[in-house]
């Protein structure tokens, strides 16, 4: 299969007997290698739950998820760890860097867990840091960095292991507009020049416009899908806004 990611009829319930919530309702879609896909939806639409399931933070109630041909819903124990180590990169909204380590060590941790040699680690880290423009903050601790720098360090950590797919959960959520733009441009760079497959969840149309494809989710189901194609980013942005208006504009479901 040329697709890196395949979501196959996934359903997710959570809660207790007294309050059951259906987060994902028979969801299916695919992502090809080298694609930059954005998943958009309002709050409560289930997009974070979807990302959690793909990254194995959470388990699906039924259905399958295939990453690089492997059914990750069946992974357990060491295989699961291996998957997380080698095939996956995750970027959180609130960075989730380790406070006790410097930027360099945060990034290298991902490689240390793979038991790579120190020389190799150094080479890779400086390489990525230069590409993302964070070389000068490598020796600083997270509390000494700005939000934008932290997010870029987190991104470096996510991609340094050459994962098959990078998942980003509202990466610009905690950043100001300038830092957001810088981060999204870095994502662009990663996707175009380094051919990284990125799946980004966002509720911000501006962010989504950087992607090459946007999937809209409403109430746990795929609502719409639009492809950038050859249009410019501005035009794509307008197209997205139109769909969002449709999503939010109508009061009832049957329009």
């Amino acid at each position, binding site marked *: 299969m040329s697709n890196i990611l395949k979501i196959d009829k996934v359903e997710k319930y959570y809660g207790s007997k007294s309050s059951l919530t259906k987060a994902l309702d028979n969801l299916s879609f695919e992502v090809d290698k080298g694609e930059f896909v954005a998943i958009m939806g309002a709050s409560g639409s289930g997009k974070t739950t979807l990302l*959690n399931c793909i*990254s*194995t*933070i*959470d388990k699906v109630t039924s259905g399958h998820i295939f990453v690089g041909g492997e059914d990750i819903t069946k992974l357990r124990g*060491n295989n699961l*760890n*291996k*998957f*997380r*180590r*080698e095939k*996956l990169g*995750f970027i959180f909204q609130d960075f*989730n860097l*380790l*406070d*006790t*380590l410097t930027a360099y*060590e945060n990034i*290298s*941790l*991902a490689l*240390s*867990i*793979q038991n790579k040699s120190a020389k190799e680690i150094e080479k890779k880290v400086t390489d990525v840091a230069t590409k993302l423009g964070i070389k000068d903050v490598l020796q600083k601790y997270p509390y000494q960095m700005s939000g934008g720098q932290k997010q870029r360090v987190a991104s470096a*950590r996510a991609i340094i292991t050459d994962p098959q797919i990078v998942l980003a959960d509202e990466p610009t959520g905690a950043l100001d507009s300038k830092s957001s733009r810088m981060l999204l441009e870095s994502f662009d760079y990663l996707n175009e020049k380094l051919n990284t497959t990125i799946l980004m969840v966002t509720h911000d149309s501006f962010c989504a416009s950087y992607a090459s494809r946007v999937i809209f989710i409403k109430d746990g189901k795929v609502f719409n899908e639009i492809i950038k194609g050859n249009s410019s980013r501005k035009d794509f942005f307008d197209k997205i806004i139109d769909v969002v208006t449709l999503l939010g504009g109508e009061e009832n479901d049957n329009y």
Partner: protein
Amino acid sequence: MTTIKLSFRNIKKSFKDYAIYFFTLILGVAIFYVFNSIESQTVLLDVTESTYEIIDMMTTMLSAASIFVAFILGFLIIYASRFLMKRRNKEFGIYMLLGMSKRKISMVLFFETILIGIISLVVGLGLGVLLSQLMSMLVANMFEADMTKYQFIFSSNACIKTLIYFGIMYAIVMLFNTINVGKCKLIDLIQTNKKSETVKMKNPMLCTIVFIISAIALGYAYYMVTGGINETIKTPEDIFKPIVIGAVSTFFIFWSLSGLILKAVMSMKNLYVKGLNTFTFRQVSSKINTTVFSMTIISLMLFVTICVLSSSLSLKNSMTANLDELAPADIQLEKRVLNENWLDQGYNEEQIKNSKEKGYNVDVDKAIAIGYVHDIGKYDGEIHGHVMKEYNYLKEKGYDEDYYNICLTHSYLNNDIVCTAGGIPDINENPFLTNFIKNHEYTIEEKIINLCDLMCPPGGKVYTIDKRLIDLIIRKGAYTNTQYHVKETYKLKDYFDNLQRLL
């Protein structure tokens, strides 16, 4: 970034955050060492054997107490480390998401625990050694031991005990941590901050019923050990009944307390909606709810502490009072009848001292002194007329009248110059002496010397009165006044015997 380096970094950060935890650990180690090292400190003290027995008992009790303390400390440390682990949930989530196996995370925690253990043991033992020196000084002072032989002592026995005990405790902590890490689901770790507390509210009706029942049970348990102690506690095993009832009912009181408070307050509607009261009461109830177990343990521990403290104080008081009653005198002597070998060295001095303790106004030192000089007239061996000779001698030397009076009074009883041993004196030979003896009011010191003279033959021995009287007869002969003298002697003896009995 090796596992060890990661642990090291975490500890470095922990120092500032968990200062109290470290402080508790260090203190615990120090106290444990001090309690156990008392034994080797005190073994070098120079005390009497009976005091040594007491010290021995004290060290045994302290060792037992240290085990109890260590047990409590163990619980504290396990609880504290679990609490601290909970705070680091998100960190563990990141490790897991980066693909670290749970085993590797356990290794990180393992090294952290070892580092904490080593640091706390080293610092704690150092502190403990210092404190134990102070403690030994305190003990020495308490038992009035000889402090000149003081030297710096390090008890390797206590050191090993501390290391073993705390090693076990850290191993248990490690075990708990590993189990906890293994149990966690990644989603819980990542979303730790977002999830709100599940509040389990209890049925108020049930709470009221349980509270009333537990309160009655607790009251009964207290009654069992105070007012009704004679009816309920018949055998030593019976004491466990009120203990168990008390503990269980305490637990249920706390369990039902929050529900009860809430029900009571909510029925007072006006109070409930006033200001922040709603928030306050809910917060308090929620706190009580979640900490039922710890509150029970704390109140039971406080109870044990207060009981132990007060009972030990009252025990000490009753023991000292008992001792005072059983041994009122500093020195006690026994007279064994029909035992001619009754030899109590320095009987004279001892008896004199004893009379003093009975409250009679005996000048002990004076009595001893006049005892020494009373026959000073015999210094040149001439016995005849030695009485006047020594009287004049001491008078000329400028001594107090007590000292030269004794020279005259020591040989004559009953204010009668005839009442003496060794023959009937001529009352006209020395009118001064006759009148002096007739009119002189004998002090108790003089009477003692009289008595002593009638118990001590020449040669520094001590006889019974009977034997001494026979000795006098053998050496000086029996005369017509001998019977009179003997009778007066026994009267004097009775006088002193009664003195003792009166008190």
